[in-house]
């Protein structure tokens, strides 16, 4: 492969770079800066009170809990799906690949409505759930489920791309040497995919903690009970407590910045470009 081209910095290049930098500052950086500007608009003491408010703390807790539940499940699913798709041949493989991608292309609102029509009182299995005194909709489990839907492709996608490129010779060698399936995975596959795995988990986490549309349909919006942090941002904003909303938003913005930094570190480590 030829080395990537680096053009010299002539007049055209400098003009293009300046336009790009200015647009990015106005369009991408300014929104991030304005969040902190607004959050601290009334001083640090108010900011601290806003963050330490009981409902906001609960929202932070529920957001963390959602990540604790959803991330391990979707990581395992991602590993299993990528392993099956890249190491074995079977009919319907393309169909499975497409099915994995579905949540990426569906509006979060549509995902939320689908869950409501499945588990809600008027839904497909809702009446049965009510008979058995089980409540899923408008409660915390609904938030977990719908977040699983929305974020299920992240780890799988990241791993499939890498593992397809790596092929399966190493596993075949391990198998000839008498390795069991688990040994093969733990000793051969995992060391080769660990950075991509971490990368997928980080991206998945950002979406888990930030999901808004799908969660807002199924959460029921009970103050201090079923509000995740993004929902709490909306609630405060509509309560005309803009400073409080931006304070809560600043926590999520920090999460985004940490995600961005970790992602660039991992990219440099693996020389891996995300194929979005």
């Amino acid at each position, binding site marked *: 492969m030829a080395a990537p081209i680096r053009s010299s910095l002539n007049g055209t290049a400098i003009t293009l770079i300046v336009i790009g930098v200015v647009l990015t500052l106005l369009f991408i950086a300014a929104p991030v800066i304005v969040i902190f500007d607004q959050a601290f608009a009334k001083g640090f003491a108010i900011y601290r009170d806003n963050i330490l408010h009981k409902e906001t703390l609960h929202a932070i807790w529920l957001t963390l809990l959602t990540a604790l539940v959803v991330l391990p499940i979707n990581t395992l699913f991602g590993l299993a799906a990528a392993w099956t798709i890249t190491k074995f041949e079977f009919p319907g493989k393309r169909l499975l690949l497409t099915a994995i991608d579905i949540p990426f292309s569906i509006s979060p609102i549509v995902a939320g409505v*689908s869950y409501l029509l499945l588990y809600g009182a008027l839904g497909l299995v809702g009446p049965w759930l009510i008979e058995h005194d089980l409540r899923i909709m408008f409660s915390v489990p609904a938030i977990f489920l719908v977040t699983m839907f929305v974020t299920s492709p992240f780890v799988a996608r990241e791993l499939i791309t890498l593992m397809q490129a790596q092929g399966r010779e190493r596993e075949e060698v391990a198998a000839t040497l008498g390795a069991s399936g688990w040994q093969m995975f733990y000793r051969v596959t995992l060391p080769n995919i660990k950075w991509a795995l971490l990368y997928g988990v980080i991206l998945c986490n950002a979406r888990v903690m930030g999901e808004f549309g799908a969660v807002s349909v199924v959460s029921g919006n009970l103050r201090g009970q079923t509000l995740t942090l993004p929902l709490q941002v909306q609630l405060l904003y509509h309560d005309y407590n803009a400073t409080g909303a931006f304070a809560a938003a600043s926590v999520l913005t920090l999460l985004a910045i940490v995600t961005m930094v970790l992602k660039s570190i991992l990219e440099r480590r693996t020389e891996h470009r995300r194929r979005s």
Partner: protein
Amino acid sequence: MGTNLFYLTLIVLLPITALILKTTDAGLARFWEVITSPRALASFEVTIGAALLATAFSSVYGLLMAWILTRYRFPGRALLDALMDIPFALPTAVAGIALTALFAGNGWFGQYLEPAGFKVAYTLTGVAVAMAFTSVPFVVRTVQPVIEELRLEVEESAATLGAWQWQTFRRIIYPAIFPAHLAGCTMAFARSLGEFGAVIFIAGNLPFETEISALLIFIRLEEYDYPAAAAIAVVLLAVAFFTLLTTNAIQSWRLKRVVKD
């Protein structure tokens, strides 16, 4: 294999099936009545119009960013590259209130734009701005690796033959990038059609003017009009499947071209 399918079925396919079954339950006549009601039609128009505007902007800005990030080395490049991930990493609701704060009449941008007669917040332009923000990384990140892999010789020979810079770009470089650019723009468009969190804060949400379809679904749910919500959701679902198929088709066309080369 079995576990994968079980999980996908339980988490993804079952809810979608419920959506489709519940819509057909209400009958085709009712479905048609809902999706052709003036308010629903207006919401489709707003959504598609704003998504087209957003994609037009993202296609140019995204291509520019992909180009300068791969072709040139300059101070701050790594930071600029990392900033391209902000729209994906920032929760959409947060992006929504931030953009509203910037473009509102008293905001950093709004205070200059509005006196100049250019109102963004609470207009269709505002909807498009929010959509563009959340979807521009699709264009950048799809085009970037392709520019990275362009071969030097093609351009060198073009340069020795005396082609102008612009001509080299238009005749040689852009055709090579085009499939990836198209794929990125399709993904950006699809994302814009479904965007909710970023849009609802800046849109003002006036029925017939700035009300997007995703919000209309939400309003119907709050009115407990589930069949109407389901009907509009099915339309969005169908459009999403259509774009997914289109993107897949473009991707396999890209692969075929690469193989031929």
